[in-house]
């Protein structure tokens, strides 16, 4: 099984796309970090000198979720688009093992994207806190939880991408669906209809980060958000498996 995961990771890292997506993800994180540091304390932005502001700051490490989604999508749709799925299944005819390996590879990609974002967050947060005269001891258990949430959410979105890709098989369609979901539907629902939004993957991630909901009703408790993320991952993994295992490859 480890060799299959290695093969899937090789697929990811032998194309340039992954570096482009990582760069975009870090770019979004950087914008968020700088904005929150600069606006700290102004116009309702929690100051970075308090625990809430610090949590918000570190949660920026996970703003590039959609790029992890894209990598997960490509890992499946690329196989259909470039017709390499035949080779994949010739080497490993037990397809459930291929799907399992792809899921694991998505988790690794999520980990990588998450850790890269977190590293960047530290790089910006430490000087920002020092400049604002805040104590670095603010970076504590809270931040650890946010970081775990970022990694989990990144992995979840990569897996979500894999599932949508397995379902649609068409690369463009899958990416449009993903971007539309994350940037339009989910962000609107999470912001304007939090009673629904808090049950969505994006809302669950916010719950784990422990950031406050800007519009009332609030997110689930952190453990609830984490459980919800795991639940979604399981559902998406099942979708990816069921749609891949029986299909005729012609």
């Amino acid at each position, binding site marked *: 099984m480890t*060799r*299959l995961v*290695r*093969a899937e990771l*090789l*697929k990811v890292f*032998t*194309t*340039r*796309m992954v570096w482009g997506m990582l760069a975009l993800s870090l770019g979004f994180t950087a914008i968020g970090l700088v904005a929150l540091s600069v606006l700290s304390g102004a116009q309702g932005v929690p100051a970075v000198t308090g625990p809430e502001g610090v949590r918000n700051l570190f949660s920026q490490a996970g703003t590039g979720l959609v790029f992890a989604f894209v990598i997960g999508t490509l890992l499946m749709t*690329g196989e259909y688009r*470039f*017709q*390499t799925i*035949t*080779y*994949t*299944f*010739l*080497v*490993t*005819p*037990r397809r459930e093992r291929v799907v399992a390996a792809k899921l694991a590879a998505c988790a690794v990609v999520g980990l990588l994207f998450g850790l890269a974002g977190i590293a960047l967050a530290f790089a910006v947060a430490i000087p920002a806190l020092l400049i604002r005269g805040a104590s670095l001891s603010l970076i504590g258990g809270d931040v650890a939880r946010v970081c775990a949430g970022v990694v989990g959410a990144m992995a979840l979105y990569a897996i979500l991408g894999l599932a949508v890709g397995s379902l649609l098989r068409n690369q463009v369609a899958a990416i449009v669906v993903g971007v539309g979901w994350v940037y339009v539907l989910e962000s609107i629902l999470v912001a304007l209809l939090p009673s629904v939004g808090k049950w969505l993957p994006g809302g669950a991630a916010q719950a784990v980060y422990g950031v406050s909901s800007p519009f009332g009703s609030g997110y689930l408790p952190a453990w609830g958000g984490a459980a919800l993320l795991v639940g979604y991952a399981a559902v998406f993994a099942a979708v990816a498996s069921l749609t891949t295992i*029986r299909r*005729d*490859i*012609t």
Partner: protein
Amino acid sequence: MPAIEIRNLSKSFGAVRAVDDVSFTVEAGTVTGYLGPNGAGKTTTLRSLLGLVAPDSGEALVNGRRYADLARPVCEVGAVLEATNFHPGRTARDHLRVLCAAAGLPEARAEQTLGQVGLADVARKRVAGFSLGMRQRLALATALLGEPRILILDEPANGLDPGGIQWLRGFLRFLADDQGCAVLVSSHVLAEVEQTVDDVVIIAGGRMVREGTLAELTSAGDRGVRVAGAGVERLRARLEAAGATVESPQDGVLLVHGAPPETVGQAALDERVVLSELVRERSDLEAVFMELTAAPGGPPPPPVAGAVTGAPGSAS
């Protein structure tokens, strides 16, 4: 146990019966041509054999087992299939490295097989810049990674130039003769494989039309023995007495049906006629193939197997 065994295989896609009760075997050390016009069901058969398509009924076995049940499939079976391709952004070598990693083969196999198919020079080039023929060679390299003893090739000559086709023929014969491999190769052009194959299976509209050795198949196109020379008319009586029918398409030429060339030669010797020509006339293979795979709606196909073997004048 035959290397490849297909038993009463059937598969429909919706209303289309792509493969209908097909059965044949391929033995080690032989090359079998799987021939049929476009849409005949060749690819569907081969993909069923490789566990990519689930048959509705019947079995397709390699080394006596279903492909999915093989412990190390790429080490037993190598395949080059239609409708497969490569990620354009990945290098030739990286494609093979991915497959080696998944199959648990040493990465050195990537370099070795690229050398075998003549792609060593472009190993580190992105596939985006590859010609169709280079992709076909890369596909062949993927099939060779695990040094399999069974090879399944779906129209492998597509996109190859004449030199490439020549090379492929030699390579397939080498695999069968020197390595003892069982090779199953599909084509919709008989002429493409006639110099390579030992056995032929012909399929049209999903149904098997013929099965036999290449020699048996070509004898089906037998159009008699053509004999030429001044005074060949003197052979007529003797040949007709031997039960042959004789035509004379032009002066000094006879076309003899129903007698082998030896009988005609003996008649010439007996009559002391000097011959300038004595050949078994054959319709060209393409014509035989066209006849056998006549468009649906035509006459029903002749019975499978046996029919050819039992025909008079089987080729030597």
